[in-house]
């Protein structure tokens, strides 16, 4: 911690932390991977990439290119022989017209795709990117909600103390005595509606207890420090002391909690969506992909499972390594 360059130019907490982080090669690699996922997320959210994932570009269950197409998929990729008209079909003329229209616009479906296709012939690669967008956004926003709530409660509780503290502690012990997964399922049962917003709320409203405990402890330590007394002396209001003076000094705790919770929530979203309590029908996430992949595996179509699982494992590994490194860099006392 003696990285002071000049007497009048001492490095702040964040500069020091960044310096420590830069020396950690694993952390920088993890940061690069997480950044790559976030760039992909932004590209996908703005529609530059994978906007057309719902196009049925391949044949059903088209295998990945590196595996090669089997005879069955090649046959399916060829133009299917038109079904002969049924002379008794009252809609025969309409169907013929529709078929002509379709033939004019339809592009031939491909027998193989870079990473295969699902049941409907969607490109798995694009689907994984799109699913990642949902999963990561849910994880990040829910973590923001949880850390925001935890910080607010922790700040009020730690700063004011006394009966306010008792009240919030009671609230905390109530929430922690119900296991978090049961809490999530209970809220899911009560809310009765699926949607990305619902799942963000469920995870965010049940996940605030961890950050609350840590932030509260930090505020209790900081509220008697001299800089807070000085702020008090110049007449700063309680809210100003809490959020303009103390918060910047404890924000590193919130940041570390944010990264830890985001990892946990991405995993939780996958499980909830898998069970069918998460994203609604029509929205793809890694969890809903795993749900489809479970049955596909029995047919020997392993590529959807692999791509969703690998994408998630890479992100979560990188994110947790980054969270560990952030904690070490920002809080050097803890080993």
């Amino acid at each position, binding site marked *: 911690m003696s990285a002071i360059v000049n007497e009048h130019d001492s490095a702040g907490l964040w500069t020091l932390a960044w310096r420590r982080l830069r020396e950690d090669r694993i952390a920088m690699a993890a940061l690069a991977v997480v950044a790559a996922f976030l760039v992909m997320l932004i590209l996908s959210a703005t529609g530059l990439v994978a906007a057309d994932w719902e196009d049925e570009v391949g044949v059903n269950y088209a295998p990945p290119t590196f595996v090669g197409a089997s005879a069955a998929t090649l046959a399916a990729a060829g133009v299917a022989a038109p079904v002969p008209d049924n002379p008794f079909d009252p809609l025969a003329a309409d169907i013929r017209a529709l078929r002509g229209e379709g033939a004019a616009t339809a592009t031939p479906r491909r027998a193989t795709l870079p990473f295969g296709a699902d049941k409907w012939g969607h490109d798995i690669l694009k689907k994984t990117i799109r699913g990642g967008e949902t999963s990561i956004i849910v994880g990040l926003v829910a973590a923001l909600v949880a850390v925001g709530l935890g910080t607010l409660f922790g700040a009020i509780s730690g700063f004011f103390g006394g009966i306010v503290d008792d009240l919030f502690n009671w609230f905390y012990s109530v929430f922690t*005595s*119900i296991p978090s997964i*049961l809490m999530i*399922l209970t809220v899911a049962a*009560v809310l009765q509606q699926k949607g990305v917003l619902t799942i963000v709320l469920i995870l965010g409203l049940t996940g605030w207890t961890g950050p609350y405990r840590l932030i509260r402890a930090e505020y209790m330590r900081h509220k008697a420090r001299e800089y807070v007394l000085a702020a008090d002396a110049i007449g700063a209001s309680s809210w100003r002391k809490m959020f303009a003076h103390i918060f910047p000094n404890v924000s590193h705790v919130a940041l570390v909690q944010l990264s830890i919770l985001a990892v946990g929530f991405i995993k939780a979203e996958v499980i909830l969506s898998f069970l069918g309590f998460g994203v609604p029908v029509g929205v793809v996430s890694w969890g809903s992909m*795993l749900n489809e992949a479970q049955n596909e595996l029995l047919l020997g179509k392993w590529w959807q499972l692999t791509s969703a*699982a690998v994408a998630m*494992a890479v992100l979560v590994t990188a994110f947790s390594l980054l969270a560990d490194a952030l904690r070490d860099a920002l809080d050097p006392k803890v080993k």
Partner: protein
Amino acid sequence: MPAFILRRLWQMLPTMLGVVLLVFLLFNWVGGDPAYILAGKMSSPEAIANIRRQLGVDEPYYVQLGIFLKQIVTFDFGQSWATGEPVGQVIATRLGPSLTVLVPMTVLETLIGVALALAVAFVRGSLTDRAVMVACTVGMSVSILVYIIVFQYGLAYRLGLFPVQGWGDNFADNLLRYAPLPILIGLAVSIAPTLRLYRSFVLDEVNQDYVRTARAKGLPERRVLWVHVLRNAAIPIITHVMANLPALLIGAFLLERFFGIPGIGREVILAVERSDFPVIKAVTVYVAAATMVFNLLADLLYQAVDPRVQLS
């Protein structure tokens, strides 16, 4: 000791009351009118009024809270909305299968976790240590769903080493035939985080003075770790195991669902899918109570492990 237990039980009351209030608020206020769920799509106003009267939801809130409190104290939550089975019986019959999987799993997980943590701490800082830690991080990042799907497909469906799913009436049959694969998967998922956590507990102890003393008097490193360090690292390990037990009852729901084990976790998932509120309410309240009781048990165990701990 009895005075300590009594006081701790007394302190649990406000928390328990909070849990009851929270569950009550969620189901009776946020959840909306249950009569519409029960009456189904084709409901007449009379039918709805009838159901409301039976459930007591036409009464004021304080009367409903009283009904709920009475249900908790008498263990009588009425009947499941989905199957008509009494809720008490649902919980009682589902507890056995859950425990058949969970007890062996917890025992094995703790033993393997402690042994590996001490072994890894023995060679701390070495290449082995770092390789194991990286493997743990990677292992933890793969979703539990992937473990279950792949193990079930590979070991049971393709290789036929285990039954794909199922559950019998015979305890020995269940334990030896149906439970091993779920237990194996549960271990595969939980060993990595457990090992990382226990390793940190052990490493907190290895720099203490008593360890240096033990080494100075010439004890072999093995004895220092397995006897001296382990006894001191036992306290956070006990806290972890005890705090996790009630949560595990629910947490194994994915295993129970995939393998068709009629346990508590699967019942909760089914209840959420079918909006079977009495079952969820009962499970939530009792699991919360169990969590608090297990915390108390953990405190009592501390004293058994470490005589210096004073219960006050």
